[in-house]
C-alpha cells in the first residue's frame, strides 16, 4: 500500500466528518436557542410605577419580568444604619451609596440570591429582609449579611421619570 492512497482517504474522512459536525451543530443550535426568552417575553422589559402613595418605612412590591421588585421608601434610621456599615463586615461588599443613588429610595429585585424565593419585609437580624426558605438575612440596603445566599439582592436598571414615577428596566 502506498502512503499517498491512505492520505487521500484520511483527508476525505476528516473533511466529511468536519462538514457533518458543522451541519449537525447548525441544526442543534436552533433547537437549543428556541428555549431562550422569546420576543414577546423580551418585549415586556420595562414597567412604570406610581410611588406617590408610599410613605417612609413602607415597601411597595411590583411585578417586573415575572419577578417581584421591592420599592422601599426608607426612614432616616434605615439609611443611617445602611451607610454606617464597614465594607469588611459584608459578604458581598457594596456601598449603600451605590445601591441607592437617592438614599430615600431603595429599588431592588425581591429575589433571594440563594435559590430565588421572595424575602419577607422588616424581618431578620439586620432589620431588612429575611428569606423564609433557607434563612438568609439582608440589611436595610438589601445586602446579604447572614445565611446561604452569596450575593446582595440585585438592583435593576431604573430611573425617576418624574417625582412620583419610577421606570424599571
Amino acid at each position: 500500500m502506498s502512503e499517498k492512497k491512505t492520505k487521500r482517504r484520511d483527508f476525505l474522512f476528516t473533511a466529511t466528518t468536519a462538514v457533518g459536525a458543522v451541519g449537525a451543530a447548525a441544526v442543534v443550535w436552533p433547537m437549543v436557542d428556541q428555549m431562550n426568552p422569546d420576543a414577546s417575553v423580551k418585549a415586556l422589559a420595562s414597567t412604570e410605577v406610581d410611588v406617590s402613595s408610599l410613605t417612609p418605612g413602607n415597601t411597595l412590591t411590583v411585578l417586573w419580568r415575572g419577578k417581584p421588585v421591592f420599592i422601599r421608601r426608607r426612614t432616616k434610621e434605615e439609611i443611617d444604619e445602611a451607610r454606617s456599615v464597614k465594607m469588611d463586615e459584608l459578604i458581598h461588599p457594596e456601598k449603600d451609596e451605590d445601591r441607592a443613588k437617592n438614599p430615600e429610595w431603595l429599588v431592588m429585585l425581591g429575589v433571594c440570591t440563594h435559590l430565588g424565593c421572595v424575602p419577607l419585609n422588616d424581618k431578620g437580624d439586620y432589620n431588612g429582609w429575611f428569606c423564609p426558605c433557607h434563612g438568609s438575612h439582608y440589611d436595610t440596603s438589601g445586602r446579604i449579611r447572614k445565611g446561604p445566599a452569596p450575593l446582595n439582592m440585585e438592583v435593576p436598571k431604573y430611573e425617576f421619570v418624574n417625582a412620583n414615577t419610577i421606570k424599571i428596566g
Partner: protein
Amino acid sequence: MSDHDYRPKSKVGQWFNDRLPLLTLANHLTDYPTPKNLNYWWTFGGILTFCLITQIVTGLTLAMHYIAHADMAFESVEHIMRDVNYGWLIRYIHANGASMFFLAVYIHIFRSLFYGSYKSPREIIWILGIIIYLLMMAAAFMGYVLPWGQMSFWGATVITNLFSAIPLVGEGIVTWLWGGYSVDNPTLTRFFTLHYLIPFLILGLVVLHIWALHVPGNNNPVGIDIKKPSKDTVPFHPYIVIKDGFALLMFMIVFAFFVFYAPNILGHADNYIEANPMVTPAHIVPEWYLLPFYAILRSVPDKLLGVVAMLSAILILAVLPWLDTSKIRSAVFRPLYKQFYWILVADVLILGYVGAMPAEGLYLLIARVATAYYFLHFLVILPILGFKEKTLPVPLSITEPVLGGSPNLASARNKESKIE
C-alpha cells in the same frame, strides 16, 4: 442456554418465529432460570414495572384533560378533580403512584445494597438503575410543577435556581431553562413536554436494565454465582411469576389505601393555592422522596458547594461497585457491613426527617452530621471494610446450607422433597 434451540410447536409459530424471533424471546423469559431462594425483597422489580405502567396509563388519560398554560393549568386540574368522570380517581392514582413508585424504588435500591447486587458482574445493571432513578426524580419534579400551585411554582423556582450556582454560565442556563426571567408559562409548557417524554425514556432504560440482568442472571440472598439451569434454579414461570404476583397484590393494597383513604397525606396543602410569584410560602418542602437530598443541600452553608454535595450524594451511587472493595456480595456473610448497612439506612431516614424540618438550630446540626456520615460510609467505610472485615464462610451452592449445616436439617429435607 436452551433458548437458542427453541422451536415453536405450531407451523404458524415456526413461520413467524423464523422471521421475527419474538417467541424465542417469550420462551427465554418464561424458562429463564431464577435462583430458587429469592425472597420477597426481590419482588420489587416486578412491582416497579407495574408502577411505571400505571403512571404512563394514568398520565396519558390526565393529559387528555389537562391544559399546560400558566393561566389555565390550576383550573384544569380542579376541572379534572370535579368535572371529569373519575378524574379524581385517575389523578389520585397518578399523584400517589409517584410516591408508591419511589417507595418501591428505595426498597429495590436498598435490597441491592444489602445483598451486594451492584457488584461484578452486575455493574451495568446498577448504573442503568441509577440513571432510571435520576430520570424518575426529574419526571416527578416536573410533574409536581404541572398543577401550578404555590408549591409547584416555588419548588420549580428553587430547583431551577440550583443551576445558577454554576460559575459564569449559571445565570444564562437558568434563563434558558425558564425561557424567561422567572418561572412562567414557557417554563410550564416545556416541563409538560419533558414530563411526557421521560417515562418513555425510562421504559427504554428498563428494557436495557432487564436485558443486562438476563446476561449474568439474578443475584440471590446468598450472593454466590450459581450454575444455570441447575438444582439451585427454578424457571421464572410459574414460580417467580406467582411470587411476584402475590407481592404485587399486597403492594396494591397499600397503594389503594393511600388513593382511597389518604389521597392528600403525602402532598402539601399549599399546592391547592394557585401559583403566586409575589409570595413565597413560609416553608418550602419538596416531596418526601427528595427530602434526604434536600437536607444535604441545606446542610452546606455555601451555595455552590451545597449543590455539589447534593448531586454527589446521588452520583456517588454510580461508582459504588468500585468503592465497595469486598469480594463477598451478600451482607449475610459480612457481619460488619451488615451493621454499617443499617446505620446507613438510619442515616438516610434521619436526613429525610430533618429535610422536612426548618434548617436551623439542632435540626441543622443533625443534618450536617448525617450528611458527613453519608459520604463517610461510601468514601471511607466501604473501601476499608473490604480489606479489614472477617467474612463468614460462604456456601458453594444455594442447596448446600439447606441440606447441610442447617440446624433444622430434617425440616429442610422435608421441604426439599416436597418441592421435588
